[in-house]
């Protein structure tokens, strides 16, 4: 019918002049965005720039205060997640949205279980789920309970779920934030396949290499405003960073050489369940040691074991030569062990409490004071916020309302903004923007420089290369390789982390 | 226990076993059961008991359980007037006779018998006492009732009807048979109607709560009318704290219930099918003649 052929195809999804504020503070201001069929469109911006807010509006999870939204050329004013799905828009949110008590199969078909004669066809559900997972190369049994999966597995299941839904738009909000190299590569492959099939993908990530490599176009948000949209072919990393940060440049200073001291943190034959069988390792003062392994290869057990949340079935943890009584959080803390979880909302923060009180919690747990001095708390917290670059659009909001990256910074500030003897860092830059990531890396350098023993459990290979002095590779809960970091290449690490060997 | 009684079925050797389904666990019911247990013992009758805790559905379950135990008769202190139609039907079908205490307003052909307390009479007597005491003059009268519903309403209406002439009801609020609540309501009453002269409280336990409120407010001039006959109530009447109470004691009810049930089962002569427990208006003058409340 259209007489005039258009220069470009109709947008799969288009936003114009979209604004959104929370309690009077603007998270998005007059943002425009256009997504073409089949393109991979990255969204970039530092923590709190408004990326998640924007995609929540696209998917009907939030309704905008103003502006227009068009899906396949049709305006939609009262979009709900349900409607959005019906219109072919599916999304993997930054915060996981699995139902913990249900099986993987059921989570995959949430809200649309296959039925036969009005009754749920469990056999079909399991079979289809198994097939969908196999298609993506996800090695998770369809009958596993979601709560029993690790964060990486949960992410993959969610991606599988949204792909199952089908549709013309898929939104991925930081899908690779918690994934290791192999899993991330798997996600990239999936995204490319889908895009080749004509599905438009919105892709949010703080890994800018990834963005430049994967996306066709990239849109940058800053302070809730649209800054630029460009083809990735015509942009490069420095200009992207500049667009994101404005004046503030993210420096990636090369790290200084460290000289490790005496052994501070030692694990001896640490065992727990089938996943961890006699792990031994030593971290010396001023040293950063990274543990690499596939999801489920035992390094995920380090947090519950070292923090005292769980009692190992065998073996010892020593700090400064002294044995830490097992299964006791208090004892671990008293020994000077600081464990920073990779699951900030489950094991890290109290979402309903304010940022400042969350920051205060650790000191309160350690010092066990009788009273809470609010004025002093706010004063001390202000310093920690500055040092860790926590930005909020309201004075002292509940942590739950912060963007993911800012929550992560609050978590780190809680644990690392004071004296540390030894620490375990699980995915310390999970969801953190480039600028902040560099800041956090410098903070970890500083930690080591002050003589702390740092055990790093990160799936981010670049992060490992940037921070670690030594790399331990664990498989089935045992150390299979112990390599000085300066003698392994990026490729080696990627290969090691997926179960291969170093060249 | 050497005395053997013959069962209704005529089986000369087998002693009687009676089931008692009690309605609640407050003082009245405690004493009722105690007097029945004492009387059953002297009569050589085995008494099985259960309690419905004010729940009509539980009452029916208790009757079911008694039927399962094949007792010779079931005595029921029902939770509500008239609520046990189903229970009676069930017992009739199982050919186990039912005997009621306190009330008997169901189809009397379906029960073995009953010992009743006439709450209408109690209300009327108290109303008449008030009119006489005030010599027909005008007076503000308050009622602090139990829970709205059958028994309390019957007594209340009879009381109101008997108030001829000057006295008028200016306050009528429930305290749900709770002593503490009665105290609150009495306090509120004093606020709303400080000139009150008489208060009719539906039972003595609540009346004691009302008394506590009056005492705290220094009001010894208000006359308390109540119903029960418990030791605490009689003491309060003797000391002048209560003006009047009506004694219809659970002891008499319980003893009559055992006697009449056994008598009716054994078809003894002169046992009335429906007997009314004698009540007695107690004032300071006759407080010493009040019948004992509990066994």
């Amino acid at each position, binding site marked *: 019918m259209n007489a005039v052929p258009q220069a470009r195809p109709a947008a799969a999804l288009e936003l114009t002049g979209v604004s959104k504020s929370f309690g009077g503070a603007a998270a998005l201001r007059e943002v425009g965005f256009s997504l073409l069929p089949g393109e991979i469109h990255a969204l970039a911006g530092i923590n709190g720039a408004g990326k998640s807010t924007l995609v929540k509006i696209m*998917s009907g*999870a939030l309704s905008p205060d103003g502006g227009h939204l068009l899906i396949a050329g049709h305006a939609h004013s009262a979009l709900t*997640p*349900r409607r959005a*799905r*019906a219109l072919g828009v599916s*999304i993997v*949110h930054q915060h996981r*949205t*699995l*139902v*913990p*008590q*249900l099986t993987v199969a*059921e989570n995959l078909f*949430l*809200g649309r*279980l296959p039925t036969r004669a*009005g009754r*749920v066809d469990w056999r079909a559900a399991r079979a289809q789920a198994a097939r969908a997972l196999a298609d993506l190369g996800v*090695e998770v*049994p369809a*009958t596993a309970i979601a709560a029993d999966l690790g964060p990486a597995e949960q992410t993959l299941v969610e991606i599988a779920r949204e792909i199952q839904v089908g549709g013309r738009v898929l939104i991925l909000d930081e899908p690779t934030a918690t994934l290791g190299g192999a899993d991330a590569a798997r996600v990239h492959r999936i995204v490319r396949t889908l895009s080749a099939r004509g599905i438009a993908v919105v892709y949010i990530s703080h890994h800018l290499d990834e963005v430049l490599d994967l996306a066709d176009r990239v849109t940058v948000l800053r302070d809730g405003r649209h800054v630029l949209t460009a083809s990735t072919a015509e942009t490069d990393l420095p200009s992207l960073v500049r667009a994101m940060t404005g004046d503030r440049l993210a420096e990636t200073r090369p790290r200084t050489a460290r000289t490790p001291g005496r052994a501070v943190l030692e694990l001896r034959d640490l065992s727990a369940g*089938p*996943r961890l069988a006699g792990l031994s390792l030593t971290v010396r003062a001023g040293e950063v040691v990274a543990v690499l392994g596939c999801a489920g290869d035992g390094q995920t057990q380090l947090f519950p074991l070292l923090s005292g949340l769980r009692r190992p079935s065998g073996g010892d943890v020593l700090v400064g030569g002294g044995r830490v009584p097992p299964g006791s959080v208090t004892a671990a803390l008293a020994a000077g062990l600081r464990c920073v979880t990779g699951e900030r909302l489950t094991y890290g923060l109290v979402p309903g409490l304010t940022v400042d009180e969350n920051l205060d919690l650790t000191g309160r747990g350690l010092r066990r004071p009788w009273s809470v001095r609010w004025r002093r708390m706010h004063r001390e917290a202000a310093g920690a916020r500055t040092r860790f670059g926590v930005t909020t659009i309201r004075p002292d909001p509940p942590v739950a309302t912060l963007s993911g990256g800012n929550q992560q910074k609050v978590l780190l500030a809680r644990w690392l903004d004071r004296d540390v003897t030894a620490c375990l860092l699980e995915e310390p830059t999970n969801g953190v923007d480039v600028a902040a990531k560099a800041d956090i890396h410098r903070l970890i350098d500083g930690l080591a420089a002050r003589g702390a023993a740092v055990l790093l459990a990160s799936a981010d290979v670049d992060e490992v290369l940037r921070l670690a002095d030594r790399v331990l590779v664990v498989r089935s809960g045992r150390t299979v390789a112990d390599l000085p970091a300066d003698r392994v290449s990026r490729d080696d690490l990627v290969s090691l982390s997926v179960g291969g060997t170093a060249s | 226990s050497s005395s053997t009684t013959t069962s209704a079925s005529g089986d000369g050797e087998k002693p009687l076993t009676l089931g008692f389904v*009690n309605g609640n666990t407050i003082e009245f019911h405690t004493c009722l*059961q105690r007097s029945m247990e004492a009387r059953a013992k002297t009569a050589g009758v085995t008494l*099985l008991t*259960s*309690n419905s*805790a*004010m*729940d*009509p*559905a*539980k009452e*029916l*379950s*208790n009757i*079911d*359980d008694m039927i*399962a*135990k094949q007792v010779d008769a079931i005595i029921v202190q029902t*939770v*509500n*007037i*008239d*609520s*046990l*139609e*189903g*229970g009676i*039907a*069930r017992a009739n*079908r199982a050919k186990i006779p039912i005997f009621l205490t306190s009330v008997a307003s169901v189809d009397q052909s379906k029960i073995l018998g009953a010992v009743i307390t006439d709450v209408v009479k109690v209300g009327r007597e108290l109303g008449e006492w008030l009119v006489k005491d005030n010599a027909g003059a005008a007076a503000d009268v308050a009622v602090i009732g139990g*829970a*709205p*519903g*059958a028994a309390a*309403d019957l007594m209340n209406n009879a009381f109101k009807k008997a108030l001829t002439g000057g006295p008028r009801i200016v306050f009528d609020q429930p305290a749900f048979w709770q002593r503490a609540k009665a105290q609150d309501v009495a306090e509120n009453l004093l606020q709303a109607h400080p000139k009150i002269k008489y208060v009719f409280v539906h039972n003595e336990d609540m009346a004691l709560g009302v008394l506590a409120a009056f005492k705290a407010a220094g009001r010894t001039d208000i006359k308390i009318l109540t119903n029960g006959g418990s030791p605490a109530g009689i003491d309060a009447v003797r000391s002048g704290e209560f003006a009047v109470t009506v004694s219809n004691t659970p002891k008499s009810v319980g003893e009559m219930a055992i006697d009449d049930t056994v008598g009716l089962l054994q078809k003894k002569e002169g046992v009335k099918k429906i007997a009314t427990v004698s009540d007695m208006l107690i004032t300071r003058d006759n407080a010493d003649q009040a019948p004992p409340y509990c066994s």
Partner: protein
Amino acid sequence: MTTAAHPRRRTIGAALPPGLVRHGGVLGVLLLIAVFTTSRSDVFLTAPNLLNVSRQIAVVAVLAAGLTLLMTAGGIDFSLGAIAAVTHGVTAQLIVAGVADWAAVALALTLGAAIGLVNGTVVTVFRVTPFVATLASSTILTGVALLVIGGQSISIGEHLGGLGFGELLGVPVLIVIAAAVCLAVGLAMRWSAFGRNAFAIGGNENAARLSGIPVVRTKLLLYTLGGLLAGLGGVMLVARLGAASPGTGGLHLELTVVAAVVIGGTALHGGSGTLVGTILGVLLLGVVANSLNLLQINPYFQDVALGTVLMVAAVANHLRSRRH
């Protein structure tokens, strides 16, 4: 090794009724009490007594089935007992007013469902916490129940006798109804999309909403269903009692129902629950009440005994589930 273990898990899980394994605690306590009572009373294990127990728990089972489904979805209804009180009164009044039995029953069920729908609306549309909303409506309905019957007992004579006392192939109709309701709800929880949506909503409401599950509609339906079943419970009460009377249903019934469901392992915060557990909970309460009578436990001690059984079952439940 890990992967090899999975298929095994799967088969066992599918073969056994979901939940029986989880309820070792309640089951154990139930058996213990049964054995003890049998050893002390030769009446307990007789057919008439067991029929008795099941007739006594029929109403509780019907309400508990509805509550299980609702609680699985993260809801709670504290007004079910009061709804039953209202509908039992309404049924009696309608019958006394000359309405045909079936019509009175239909109206009572409709009324129950309507009240449930109102509760659901307050919870979903005004987003009042379910506990608060239904505590308030329970209070209102307790008053309404009293008003409906004017505080008096209303006898329905021989009406609804077939329901209250009738039998179907030797099984009391009340038990047949309760069993049918439990079966239907149990199947719905396992095999219907509606039931599975309830689990998803209770487990993570946000996730459910984001995956397009009609959360509001499902919740409304759940509260309506709860109300409907409470209405049915009211009808069963009046049929069994042969009269409507003050104090029937209400808080007593409510607390029994809630206790049965939670002792059966349904989580107060939603996301998990089994009808098998609920039925065991209902049975436990029924058997305990029956045993207390058969064993002639002093009424003052009955509460102590009941509470102790609940506590032991809860602790046993926990110990069982830890071993898993």
